[in-house]
């Protein structure tokens, strides 16, 4: 949760963010639906999702492959049209005022969306300019962010030579140029080695401490357990569980009468209609 004693670097700007000015939810959806027209007919990727993410939270959005996680994120970040329902980010109706919503959100998608021919610094300057900064302000902001994500040494090298972890950190930095109120991270640690994953976790915590709400999708349940204040689990386009990790575990334990506290893996598997069979030291997932 935000900690106003933990400001550094971009203090003045962060203070502005930390000041509680908004009474609206950071993210709110009402009956959100997305249908695709495929070769085999209409695919219902998201089927009426109601969601509310409070300002200042790290919110984890979990689900099996193809459950609708990325579709939700792409709709919320204005990259994908909404079939029906409504969605608000930082209180802005994203369908009615997409540009206003874009000004308030940062986006780092599943694959670090970077231009390999630019240097890290050029990319951040360009991104800053696209959010309306002057050349001088953009250069200063790029330098701040390069320091924030510890990429100053590589700042003037082309991105194509960066490691996976460096690219991910740069992608994170590029999502922060305009100090967004809400940061969407779609599987930010997929494909990273354990050390790089920890670095990204630290960055996410630091960003959140500065007052930014983080909406995070992940396939790593440990990640969700470590980082998220609350989580929602989506399966087959519908929210099947929502709450704090602790509350979800307790609920499962009480409902199933388990002797020990279940893990978030257990919650996830149970919620998505799978069970985990244990036998002879082997754990395997099977369809329900």
């Amino acid at each position, binding site marked *: 949760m935000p900690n106003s004693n933990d400001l550094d670097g971009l203090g003045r700007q962060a203070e502005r963010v930390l000041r509680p000015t908004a009474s609206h939810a950071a993210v709110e959806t009402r009956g959100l639906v997305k249908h695709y027209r495929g070769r085999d007919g209409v695919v219902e990727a998201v089927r009426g999702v109601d969601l509310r993410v409070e300002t200042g939270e790290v919110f984890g959005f979990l689900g099996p492959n193809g459950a609708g996680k990325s579709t939700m994120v792409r709709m919320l*970040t*204005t*990259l*994908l*049209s909404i079939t029906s329902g409504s969605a608000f980010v930082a209180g802005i109706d994203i369908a009615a005022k997409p*540009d*206003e919503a*874009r*000004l308030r*959100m940062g*986006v780092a*998608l*599943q*694959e*670090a*969306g*970077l*231009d*390999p*021919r*630019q240097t890290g610094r*050029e990319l951040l300057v*360009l*991104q800053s*300019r*696209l*959010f*309306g900064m002057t050349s001088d302000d953009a250069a200063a902001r790029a330098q701040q962010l390069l320091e924030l994500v510890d990429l100053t040494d590589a700042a003037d090298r*082309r991105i194509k030579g960066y490691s996976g972890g460096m690219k991910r950190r740069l992608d994170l930095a*590029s999502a922060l140029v305009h100090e967004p109120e809400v940061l969407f991270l779609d599987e930010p640690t997929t494909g990273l080695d354990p050390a790089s994953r920890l670095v990204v976790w630290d960055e996410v915590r630091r960003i959140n401490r500065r007052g930014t709400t983080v909406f995070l999708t992940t396939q790593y349940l440990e990640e969700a357990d470590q980082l998220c204040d609350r989580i929602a689990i989506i399966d087959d386009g519908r929210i099947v569980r929502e709450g704090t990790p602790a509350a979800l575990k307790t609920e499962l334990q009480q409902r199933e009468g388990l002797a020990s506290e279940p893990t978030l893996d257990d919650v996830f598997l149970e919620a998505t209609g799978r069970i985990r069979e244990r036998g002879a030291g082997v754990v395997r997932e099977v369809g329900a």
Partner: protein
Amino acid sequence: MKYTWVLGQRALREALRTPEALLPTLFIPMFFLVVNLGQAGKIFPSGTTSFLDGQNYAAFQLPSSMLLAASFGTAALFLVEDIEGGYFDKLRSSPVPRTSLVFGRLVAEVVKGLLIASVLVVLALPFGIRLASGFLGFLLLIALTALWAVVYVGFMQLIALKTRSAAATNSGGLIFFPLLFLTPNFVPRHMLTRPMEVAATFNPVTYVMEALRSLILQDLVWGRILAGFGVVGALGLIMLVLNLRMIRNYD
């Protein structure tokens, strides 16, 4: 406009940092100029060939090479790379007008087109080519070539945005070759066989080529020049409208 220029600068930087994509746009058109001159130069000697207006056959062929250079559409291939790599989504998630996302690359294409056309003219000078329309003619020549480049990149961007596939975009770009060979490419239109003449008359590239050719071989023939610019303007407008529609509906 500010965002368009910012994105245009990025597209220019991208082009400069990929010389391996830029060099063929000069080398291949020059190759065709040399080969066509070698094959047909003796058939059409300057002294006895009236349509050459006293110049050699290289002057007649230069417009084909310039149009070819302007029709590589590499900017559209860079766009597909942006789409495939996820950077296009990063740009789309910024509060930039959707028009700027399209115009940025097209503005860069104007600059690239002007440079490439100028270099081609300079490279063609040792072949004994001179511009009969003078300095104003030179400016019109490179401007028309650059605008054609914008039209063609606009067309290829449509394929890129629709298919999001490098292979499809690349293949789509090859459509220029049939268009080029359905023009009065080797001889003036009135010397073509009747079916080819009809095909050339309906082919918009013909009017661009004839405008370019008139600027090289003759003084300012405004009827020809305006026809060329008119075709490029009309096609450019169509491409812009279609590109904007495509980007606004891009999911």
